[in-house]
């Protein structure tokens, strides 16, 4: 009985150690704003096929990620949806080296497919009876949206303030909300909602910085990832997802 148990344990240990013949896995952990998910998923896949690095991608509202990093969550790379949060990270000593802007994003109004409520501009969002959902001002997208609305001189009464911009998107896709303000990239990659362009005069351009974290244990892998994002390949992926290049 004991012997059988020992044999089983030995096999299990070998299986755990084995796999690829004993070569330790190269990994990189990336904390990225939720609006980056479609693009970074593709970049991560590219990383996997072109190198032997296995990426772990964690998406959430930028403010949530920053909060986690401040509390000591282990990660190698941080990609923020605005400069303000990256600056806070810098001041808190979380970064190793300088951050680089790798993409820009503009805002767009998201509506249900077919635009049943006939929304044509930011001004339409103040229409009474319309259910509008925005990102919370603590989220970059929410901050930008508030700015855009101010630029347009429109007062909106949102039904809910979501924790991440993808939350806005999902409420519209679910049919619970009539409209919301999200990123252009969100609408491009969503496929479940339609978009209404916001003229540049009212729009806000968000800058996306990326940086390596000072607590990283995988510096080489982190650099590889960052370089991939900034490379022609990475930029092409970002553009295809609706972002504007660095």
């Amino acid at each position, binding site marked *: 009985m004991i012997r059988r148990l020992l044999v089983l344990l030995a096999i299990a240990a070998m299986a755990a150690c084995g796999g690829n013949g004993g070569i330790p896995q190269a990994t990189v952990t990336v904390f990225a704003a939720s609006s980056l998910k479609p693009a970074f998923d593709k970049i991560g896949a590219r990383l996997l096929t072109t190198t032997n690095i296995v990426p772990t991608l964690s998406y959430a509202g930028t403010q949530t990620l*920053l909060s986690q990093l401040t509390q000591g969550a282990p990660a190698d790379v941080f990609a923020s949806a605005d400069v303000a949060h990256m600056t806070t990270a810098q001041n808190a000593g979380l970064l190793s080296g300088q951050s680089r802007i790798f993409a820009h994003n503009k805002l767009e109004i998201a509506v249900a497919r077919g635009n049943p409520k006939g929304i044509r501009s930011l001004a339409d969002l103040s229409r009474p009876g319309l259910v509008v959902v925005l990102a919370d001002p603590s989220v970059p997208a929410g901050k930008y949206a508030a700015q855009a609305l101010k630029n347009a001189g429109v007062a909106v009464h949102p039904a809910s303030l979501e924790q991440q911009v993808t939350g806005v998107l999902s409420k519209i896709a679910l*049919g619970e909300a009539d409209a919301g303000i999200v990123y252009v990239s969100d609408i491009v990659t969503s496929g479940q909602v339609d978009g209404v362009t916001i003229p540049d005069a009212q729009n806000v351009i968000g800058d996306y910085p990326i940086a390596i974290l000072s607590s990283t244990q995988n510096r080489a892998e982190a650099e590889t990832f960052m370089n991939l994002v900034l490379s022609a390949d990475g930029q092409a992926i970002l553009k295809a997802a609706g972002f504007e290049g660095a």
Partner: protein
Amino acid sequence: MIRARIPPAIGILAGVGLLLFLLPLAGLIVRAPWNQALGELTDPTTTTALGLSLFCSLTATAIAMVLGIPIAIVLARTHGTLRNLLRALTTLPMVLPPVVGGVALLLAFGRRGIAGSVLYQVFGLQIPFTTAAAVMAETFVAMPFLVIAVEAGLRSLDHRYEETARALGANQWTVLARVTLPLLRPAIFSGAVLCWARALGEFGATITFAGNFPGRTQTVPIAVYLALETNPDAAITLSLILLVVSLAILVGMRDRWLGAL
């Protein structure tokens, strides 16, 4: 007082377990920004969230009593498979992850929900993102506590009280009002208190179904969650308030009322 002798091994394990409960609470109290606490307490975001939480949780408890006591009566008076089925149904929200509950509520009462779509198209009524939605979410997760407590109370009630009352000529409503419910008072009370406590702390279903908006749907748990990222001091203060309220509830409830469970 500790009466019987406790074996050392049991004592150690229990000690570790108690630490698990104690340390987080101690953390809250020790790290609390006592200097700013008063300021946070009077901050409009805090008071709004508190007021809303109290309103929603008390309303949810009232609804739970009006609907839950009849459910408990039905459960206590049915038998066999039907009863097991009904009971599983009414206690499901207790084991369901709250967010799942929120999603389910959306699919039922959202604008495209099976019932919600009718309400929306026929009456123009929209439930998500309203205070009513917050109340519904809280009722959904908290009512089972009341139902279970009252059903247990009913089962342990001597059925001869009701029989005697009927023999004396009381019709079913008189029996209910003058005999059954008064005798159930301890069970109803303990069930309602637990229901209220659960409703007060509800987060997942509320934020999914009712969303987040200060003064309308931003209850204390949601406010804490948000504040954690932008204003940790306020988050801690709010957490402390909720902790004090919960402790007061539990300490206030004596053993014999908890015994009804």
